[in-house]
């Protein structure tokens, strides 16, 4: 059993009051005592270790009990100056969470019948509003409904003033405490934001995959802003497109460039709500996918795209801090995506360079390493590769009984595919040269290339066989620039006999042409790197200039003439530089 001594002080006084009542003391005295006991109870409660909500609730109950009122509420001033309901008993349904007060809050006890603040009295069904003041400012309002069969006479109002005086300090402490808690919470959010930004920036700098970056930044944004959907629009080479979607998907990601989004990116500098967008297709789509907030992705002074952030399930709107966080995240995302794209370009460039290097090595390996000895003749060749590996090729093939085959070719395309095709041509000519007439040889090579290459790949080729003893030069020209036959007097004729380019037509036929190379005469074979060498204005070197150089060099050695021709073509192109491989092959009879 609990002894009397262990009971709270209030109960001890309550028992004393019961005794006084039994002893027949005056009712006004008993009432006064009862009020004092209630105030004691109130101050004990207000200074207890309970939470502020519990304290306010208990305080309200004590007042309702003492004054025998069945309805009441405690409204506490908030940061924005409104009075929010913090404790309530017996209020009508639909009681507003904030007191509808027009003008200043009362600084004196106000009764309903005074006609002041009618909205507040009506909203909660009150009879009386009692201010709780601290340093001359109303920090809370105690509202009370009708008393059982009594009015709020002077003595009740005096009691309420005492209640207000007791309650003011604890309520103010509660307000300060709440403010501190809110500040603390805002600080915690900031710390969490910074942790996230640090965490994500470390991850982004280590990431080389655009998809992971998009996933990570959208996840972080959704988690931080508490939204269940998010889309990312990014600037691509030719406009802005929907690059990534999270949460419920519209399925339109990466589908199309969006001209409206492209136009928006031109002007988007700061976060914007979708509601603020001008009417149009983009706004329609964003509203259809329930997007609410747009945040630009900025790199320096450029906008590289934007986040579209979904509505908040909580219904909360987006504030400046949300925008700041999203902008910071957007900057990191844009920088990371740009880094990945630059890296990818660099890797692609390296791959191409490597391929070019291999192609060049193949091409170089196919040029003949020795000139066959041809008494009474002079044989000279040069090939200048351009910055890109083209498909030029030449070869000397010694044949039985002292004859020699000469060939020059130009393969369509560039790079590794061209050099591989060239290697096939080289090998088939080496295998077949001398076994067939030039025309029959060309038919075989044509058929082989037709069957083994893609439809759009072809080769132009000139093939000639010199019999040094008879001075006869038999040739076939498969679509190549006709070589220049220069007579001793410098006059030029062309060697065009043959057929079409190799590899395009299955049943192409070829004819063999033939000349006799008298002493002092020469045959010069070129590729289009010579004839099509062009000035910056696009003027080509052309046949006539080739012929003029050869004419002028008729008396000179093959080596001299060859280099004169190469120099003239290169000088012609001048600042334009080369645009294709340049190859020249010259055979001169003495």
């Amino acid at each position, binding site marked *: 059993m609990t002894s009397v001594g262990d009971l709270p002080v209030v109960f001890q006084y309550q028992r004393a009051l019961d005794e006084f009542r039994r002893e027949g003391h005056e009712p006004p005295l008993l009432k006064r005592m009862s009020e004092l006991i209630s105030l004691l109870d109130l101050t004990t409660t207000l200074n207890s270790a309970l939470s502020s909500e519990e304290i306010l609730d208990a305080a309200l109950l004590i007042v309702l009990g003492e004054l025998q009122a069945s309805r009441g509420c405690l409204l506490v001033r908030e940061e924005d100056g409104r009075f929010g309901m913090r404790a309530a008993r017996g209020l009508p349904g639909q009681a507003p969470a904030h007191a509808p007060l027009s003008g200043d809050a009362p600084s004196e006890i106000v009764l309903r019948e005074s006609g002041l603040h009618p909205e507040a009295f009506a909203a909660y069904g009150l009879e009386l509003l009692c201010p709780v003041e601290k340093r001359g400012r109303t920090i809370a309002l105690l509202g009370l409904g009708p008393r059982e069969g009594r009015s709020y006479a002077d003595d009740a109002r005096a009691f309420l003033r005492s209640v207000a005086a007791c309650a003011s300090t604890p309520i103010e402490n509660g307000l300060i405490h709440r403010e501190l808690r809110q500040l603390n*919470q805002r600080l*915690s*959010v900031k710390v*969490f934001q910074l*942790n*996230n930004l640090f*965490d*994500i920036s*470390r*991850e*982004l700098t280590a990431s080389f995959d655009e998809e*992971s970056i998009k*996933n*990570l930044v*959208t*996840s*972080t*944004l*959704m*988690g*931080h802003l*508490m*939204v*269940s*959907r*998010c889309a990312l629009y990014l600037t691509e080479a030719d406009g802005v497109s929907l690059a990534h979607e*999270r*949460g*419920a998907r519209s399925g339109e990601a990466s589908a199309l460039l969006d001209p409206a989004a492209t136009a928006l990116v031109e002007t988007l500098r700061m976060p914007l709500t979708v509601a603020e967008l001008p009417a149009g297709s983009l706004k329609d789509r964003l509203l259809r996918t329930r997007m609410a907030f747009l945040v630009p992705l900025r790199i320096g002074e450029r906008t590289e795209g934007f986040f579209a952030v979904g509505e908040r*399930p*909580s219904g*909360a709107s987006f504030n400046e801090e949300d925008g700041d966080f999203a902008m910071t995240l957007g900057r990191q995302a844009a920088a990371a995506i740009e880094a990945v794209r630059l890296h990818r370009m660099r890797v692609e460039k390296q791959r191409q360079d490597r391929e070019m290097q291999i192609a060049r090595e193949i091409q170089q390996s196919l040029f003949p390493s020795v000139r066959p000895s041809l008494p009474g003749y002079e044989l000279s060749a040069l090939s200048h590769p351009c910055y890109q590996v083209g498909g030029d090729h030449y070869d000397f093939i010694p044949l039985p009984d002292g004859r020699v085959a000469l060939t020059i070719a130009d393969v369509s395309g560039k790079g590794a595919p061209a050099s591989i095709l060239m290697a096939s041509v080289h090998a088939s000519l080496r295998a077949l040269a001398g076994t067939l007439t030039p025309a029959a040889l060309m038919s075989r090579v044509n058929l082989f290339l037709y069957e083994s290459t893609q439809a759009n790949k072809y080769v132009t080729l000139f093939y000639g066989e010199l019999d040094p003893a008879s001075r006869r030069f038999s040739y076939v020209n498969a679509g190549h620039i006709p070589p220049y036959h220069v007579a001793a007097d410098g006059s030029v004729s062309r060697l065009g006999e043959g057929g079409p380019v190799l590899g395009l037509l299955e049943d192409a036929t070829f004819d063999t042409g033939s000349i006799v190379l008298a002493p002092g005469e020469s045959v010069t074979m070129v590729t289009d790197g010579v004839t099509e060498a062009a000035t910056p204005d696009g003027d080509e070197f052309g046949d006539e200039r080739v012929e003029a150089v050869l004419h002028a060099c008729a008396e000179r050695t093959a080596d001299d003439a060859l280099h004169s021709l190469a120099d003239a073509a290169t000088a012609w192109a001048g600042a334009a530089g080369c645009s294709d491989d340049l190859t020249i092959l010259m055979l001169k009879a003495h």
Partner: protein
Amino acid sequence: MSDLTVDTRDVEDIRLLYPRGFINAHTVRVFEHELQRTLQEGRFKVVVDCSGLAYIASAGLGAIMGSIEEIRGNGGDLRLAGLNETVRNIFEILGFNHLYRIFPSEAEAILSFRQGGGSTA
């Protein structure tokens, strides 16, 4: 050594996820992968038991946010259990606790599905 492992267990039609370690920008894909797999398998009653979870960054919360529409759209829910103080604080700071039902223990979260409670907290 990975910063995060995610074990799973099924109790009847309820999928339990046990993230252990840190869900941050680096590890979030592991967690998200398990979540996606759960949905692909048509399991929409999900309990994330956070008792082994030391920390969760926004990216992890985003992974949950990104799947919740699909989960609830299929009549399911994602509920959380066993949050340590750090994780609970993060949830409260961001208001996550208003969007998800959070239980002291995994057993209570499982029980809540059996009793057929609604999806919102």
